[in-house]
């Protein structure tokens, strides 16, 4: 019995989510191909892609499995890659307070890098939105990317043929995520946080199971928040 107008935020979300098909397409296709080559059958490939729906973690799991790592390590490494989503979850939670539990569960299922990045940007921007508006927007934003992610994983697994490396599809996710982040660099604090993240992630890249990235992210958040606090204080 939603009394707010569901349609405009839904279609606005749909349009905003549309560019991310360019990330989902090659990423999904590559996962389908790589997983099939690693020995998954098509039912296992699709189950993983639908149940886990986290590209980076799925690739991590495959890489560990191809190294014949123990199951505990396969799981620990892939879940470590996903730990950033706890931060995403905490960051979105205040905007979705009061939504039904199953709706928050659905949001959680669809919480991937691009839905988070688009969602948090618009939730901050549109202070006039109700919780229902935000839910509709998020749903619309998720749909195009998710459909492409599922269907191109399927095509990759089905055809199983390699795309020539000359197409540089490995690099599509990097371009897409940079393109999400760059427009967010709107203050000194944001730029400082981003630079901290880059420098530490590279310096700590030797650490196992993405633990270096987790440290880099936490320090970068502290740097951003501290700069913001110092900039606000003299104004008081």
């Amino acid at each position, binding site marked *: 019995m939603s009394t707010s107008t569901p349609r405009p935020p839904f279609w606005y979300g749909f349009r905003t989510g549309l560019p991310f098909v360019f990330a989902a397409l090659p990423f999904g296709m590559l996962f389908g191909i790589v997983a099939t080559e690693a020995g998954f059958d098509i039912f*296992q490939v699709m189950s993983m892609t639908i149940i886990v729906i986290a590209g980076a973690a799925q690739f991590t799991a495959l890489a560990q499995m191809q190294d014949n790592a123990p199951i505990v390590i396969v799981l620990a490494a892939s879940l470590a890659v996903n730990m950033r989503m706890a931060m995403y979850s905490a960051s979105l*939670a205040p905007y979705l307070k009061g939504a039904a539990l199953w709706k928050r569960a659905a949001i959680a299922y669809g919480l991937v890098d691009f839905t988070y990045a688009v969602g*948090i940007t618009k939730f901050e921007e549109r202070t006039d939105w109700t919780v229902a508006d935000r839910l509709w927007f998020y749903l619309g934003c998720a749909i195009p990317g998710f459909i492409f992610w599922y269907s191109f994983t399927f095509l990759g697994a089905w055809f199983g043929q390699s795309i020539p490396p*000359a197409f540089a599809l490995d690099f599509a996710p*990097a*371009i897409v995520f940079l393109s999400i982040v760059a427009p967010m660099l709107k203050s000194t604090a944001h730029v400082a*946080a981003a630079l901290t*993240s880059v420098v530490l992630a*590279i310096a700590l890249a030797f650490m196992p199971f993405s633990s270096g990235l987790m440290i880099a992210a936490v320090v970068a*958040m502290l740097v951003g928040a501290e700069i913001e606090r110092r900039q606000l204080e003299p104004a008081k």
Partner: protein
Amino acid sequence: MNFTDSEIWFIIISLGIGTFVIRFSFLGAFGQINLPPYALRLLRYTPVAVMPGMVAPLILWPAGTGGETDAARIVGAFVAIALGVYFKNTLAAIFGGGITLYLMLFLLG
């Protein structure tokens, strides 16, 4: 790869459950707690704190070249950042970065 079918299924399902628990953590159980202002301020920096660090190694040591630093990919990445910062538009950055990458790959052959 030396995994039985049931081991593969065990990994798929455990990874699915674990990932969902991580995603649901704050949205679910802790979601109704009022976070202090300092925590909210920290959380505002989550995307700019996580994504640049996630992408930086992919740019420096791309999987497609077997980890060898590649000029075309670096230039493509910088064009995407520049367009994104200047136009505040994700789609412009994706297309600009992608076209630059292909042009550079073509030119550097």
